[in-house]
């Protein structure tokens, strides 16, 4: 799978979706350290899904345009909010193909904060809350 980096033009809708997720995910700390002005769209293979606090983590292998594999560590929400939204430690499995929007570290390292997680077909990863 390939990564798509819309650094030149960021659709306004995507930007606001990202910001709204930031509000949900930033209980632990400010997300100002991430580059919200240059979000990236990643398509990759789940290596590990860590349902932990203060943030969940997806370890995601992304194949770049040159064929090299980038291993991203991307953090998301907390277990409290995620569980109430239907996520569990079994929601993602190694090998799952997913799409995410990532606000990357400003250093250029393969880390950041993810939002809008989708299955490869574009459907939301979690559609129905399970914790209710």
């Amino acid at each position, binding site marked *: 799978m390939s990564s798509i980096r819309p650094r030149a033009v960021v659709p306004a809708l995507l930007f606001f979706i990202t910001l709204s997720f930031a509000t949900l995910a930033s209980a632990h700390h*400010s997300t100002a350290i991430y580059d919200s002005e240059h979000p990236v769209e990643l398509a990759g293979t789940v290596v590990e899904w860590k349902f932990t606090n203060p943030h969940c983590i997806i370890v995601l292998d992304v194949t770049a345009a040159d064929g090299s594999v980038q291993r991203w560590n991307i953090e998301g929400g907390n277990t409290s909010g995620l*569980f109430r939204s239907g996520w569990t430690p079994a929601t993602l499995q190694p090998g799952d193909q997913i799409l995410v929007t990532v606000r990357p570290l400003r250093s250029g390292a393969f880390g950041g904060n993810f939002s809008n997680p989708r299955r490869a077909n574009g459907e939301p990863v979690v559609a129905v809350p399970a914790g209710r």
Partner: protein
Amino acid sequence: MRNPARSLVPVSLVTLMALLAAGCSTPAATTATASAAPARGASYPDWSGQWQRIGSLNWPPEGYEVAGPAPLTPEYQAIYEQNLALRAQGILAGDPPATCLPPGMPRMMKMSFPMEIIITPAITYIYADWESQIRRVYTDGRAWPEYILPEFNGYSIGTWRDDDNDGRFDTLAIETRGIKGPRSIDSSGVMLHSNDATVVFEEIFQRDANTLENKITTIDDAFTRPWTINQQYSHVTDNIIWVEYVCAEGNRHIQLGDEWYFLNDDEGILEPTRAGQPALVPASPVPASP
């Protein structure tokens, strides 16, 4: 190194003047108030269940009509602006909980995560799901101890009031001192003063059947005057979910001196967070094979 003697008198002269200017009780007067025994026969409100924060994670905009933004001294305004500039570089400045420190008072009462209140005659327990923190508010009529060991949530003495004289307590008034730092007011980058002389006054009461309100007045030497915020919480009674929170389990944000790193434990690397910062790759403790 903290000076233990400081906490013997946790209220600075500036704070004391602010207290008087705000019309708040002086510590001595408050001690007298707190020493009053609860009225006999009055019953306690039912605040059981779960309470969830109303509004965003940071204090503004709710409460703005009451207090405006935090009234910072020039020194702490400069610190705030510096924190914002550092964040723009990728450095997580001015947000101590990022390293898993507890938010402390008064940020704890923002309740980023749900809250539970357990009322007993001698102590009211305020439990915050975030960091699994608990406050003990002593309502047994005790006086302030001679020495308060500084803690992030401070030492709280409360007084129940029956403001409408219906024989039922409706308001829990709390004074909290001995609060340890470092603390920020929220995740905005505004820090409270490093002298840790903060005093927090609260009045918690039920606004309506589904709303609890906390009028929080913070007196701190980073402020030019007392700062009051009204925080509300909505009541959850059905299908209450409590979720354990252990911050050390998955925290990625590592501070080493003035540098911040993003933990990549999968590869054993501390990733840089700002441009131009080298990654930190610890030497392996395992000797290389001959």
